């Protein structure tokens, strides 16, 4: 019973983190057909900015409660600034090029962002545990969990719901679906496709930064976290179907629960578990669980 509870809570917590970190990636792919490896860089920028800002703020001795405002603000600043710079400065000159070329371009951007984080924050680790400590822990069937973990789960659900509503029940969302379906027709209808691309990319980057920023109080922020997350995020969106937000949610849950199950039941195979699940899903559904082979879907 205790094992099941541990798997359920840890799996949900891990899935929430994965979803927040990968949903921007799948959004950008769904709209722009760019497999954005630089997403790991946005995640790292968000984590570093949040950890640094929280550290700076807590040194003043002011109330910790404000850090819950600082974290999303840090993500917003990191995501919007870096997203705009990357999209306006580099990617807009590449639209329409081969998808493989875009992978190489975004990989190069990722490497640049990795070095940018090192230039700004150095190579030492940043820890900003205060927001996670401040909320304390709660016992779930005798096992202590940080309340902050449940906060991340709540934020992940909120982000997923907000994206679903925006895309399916608002005018902007419907216009976006038109852009996804046919860029040329959209332009002919007077839709500003370039603006949609820019906004989508910035939102995707900000979501990546938010994933990093929210996770920062629970981890040590170190060089290399961007590379770690991009591998996981790709596994998640490949399982769920690239370009599908519902798929990203399902993929995150599958990877999250399988990792938690392996940690608690058979720890030596934990790292292998993610790839095992991905291989198993792709063997049955080569385009992922939610994606159609020939059409774009979001």
């Amino acid at each position, binding site marked *: 019973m205790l094992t099941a509870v541990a798997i359920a809570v840890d799996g949900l917590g891990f899935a929430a983190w994965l979803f927040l970190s990968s949903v921007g990636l799948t959004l950008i792919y769904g709209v722009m057909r760019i497999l954005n490896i630089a997403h790991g860089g946005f995640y790292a920028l968000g984590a570093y900015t949040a950890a640094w800002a929280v550290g700076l703020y807590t040194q003043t001795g002011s109330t910790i409660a404000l850090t819950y405002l600082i974290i999303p603000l840090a993500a917003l600043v990191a995501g919007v600034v870096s997203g705009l710079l990357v999209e306006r400065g580099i990617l807009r000159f590449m639209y329409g090029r081969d998808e493989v070329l875009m992978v190489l371009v975004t990989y190069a951007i990722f490497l640049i962002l990795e070095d940018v984080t090192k230039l700004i924050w150095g190579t030492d680790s940043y*820890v900003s545990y205060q927001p996670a400590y401040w909320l304390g822990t709660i016992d779930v069937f005798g096992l202590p969990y940080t309340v902050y973990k449940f906060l991340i789960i709540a934020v992940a659900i909120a982000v997923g719901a907000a994206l679903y509503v925006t895309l399916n029940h608002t005018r902007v969302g419907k216009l976006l679906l038109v852009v996804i379906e046919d860029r040329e027709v959209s332009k002919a209808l007077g839709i500003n496709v370039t603006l949609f691309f820019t906004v989508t990319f910035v939102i995707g980057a900000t979501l990546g930064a938010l994933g990093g920023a929210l996770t920062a109080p629970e981890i040590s922020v170190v060089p290399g976290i961007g590379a770690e997350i991009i591998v996981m995020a790709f596994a998640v969106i490949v399982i769920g179907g690239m370009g599908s937000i519902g798929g990203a949610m399902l993929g995150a849950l599958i990877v999250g629960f399988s990792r938690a199950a392996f940690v608690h039941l058979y720890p030596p195979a934990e790292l292998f578990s993610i790839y095992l699940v991905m291989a198993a899903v792709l063997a049955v559904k080569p385009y992922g669980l939610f994606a159609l082979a020939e059409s774009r879907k979001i």
Partner: protein
Amino acid sequence: MTTMCRAFLAFFCILLATLPVAGESLRIKAGCLFPLTGPGALYGRDSTVAIKLAQKHLESLEPFGYPQVDVIVEDTRSKSLRSLQIARRLIDEDRVDFLCGVVNSSVARAVSGLARDEEVFFIGTDHASPALTSEDLHPYYFRVNNGTRLSMRAGAKYIRETYGNRSEPVKIAFIGPDYEYGYQAWDDLRRFLQQQGTEFEIAGEYWPKVFETDFSPYIQSLLRTDADIVVNGQWGLDFVTFVKQAAQLGLFDRLQFMNFDAGGNYELLAELENDMPLGLVLSARHHVNWPPTERNRAFVEEFREEAGRYPSYAAQGAYAGILAMAEAVRNAGGTGDKDRIRESLEHLTLSLPEDPDGFRSKMDPVNHQILQVQAIGKTIFNNSFAPAKVMLGDWRIYYPPESWPTFKNGS
């Protein structure tokens, strides 16, 4: 001039050219590989400072015939391929007499293989995997920092002394990094416990990846076990992350936490400051507050003056490495005869700051691993070494065996 005279003159000229000029000291060229950026960079930076201290020490010994060591330090970034490229360049272009350093055991294994192929001495100063001194061992590899095996031997004795009188077996859970170092540490601990007849049960084994940022699922799993002790094999930043997350989830209130190899490193105590819980059983390969000898105090203070901070244990390893090279070359009479240098290294004894009074670190001639004293302590409040607020105290001291311990299967 007869042919005989010309030949004699030529021979005399060659002899003059090869002899050192009177007063010119013998010089050694060493290439040291350390991570200077990224995780583990502090160990590299501390090693670099310690190398300077060792060079200064050797300058003072020059009148006694000690050679001076010129050192090239390169940044490995803890990457095997990069380390191999650097090591190859140091051998081929810089023509170093010795390779030295390396923090990560996996990187060290790669560099050690190259040293074997190129027949260049590699003095390991900061990695600890027993594999390098057992299945990977070759005539050109020597290690001058305490190995994990001796740490685990001391740890097994500590567990026996603490829990040996109980009627039921002690339950041990292990969590260590998912690479060769972690597996070797756990394997050695179990074997020493078995060897000394300690009854124990394994309550769980966990292998998070190196540089893991979120240990919480493992901590939850540890909390579900009925273990008496959790033995931890993390080092560096992984240890800091683990302790912070485990403290938050109350692990230290439920289980006795022990880390025998690296957890008591000063750098970690300084990083954790007030977040370091009291009562943890930790050790390291060098302590700034043990042994309480004048030599150790002087080393620690000299380091602090040079670097502006107290040394991590990596500093002691690098310091010992430079002294070991100098001692070996001095005894061998130069860098030309590798067989004599090897013989000298195999019978090396060194007086180091980490040695307690009356003890000298000595090389095991068979396994090429230096044998040193291991001190295990408990975390207690002590703010004498700022920024650390908690230091180790309540020491238990374990002298090394006469020779490198091996197990029945020969490993």
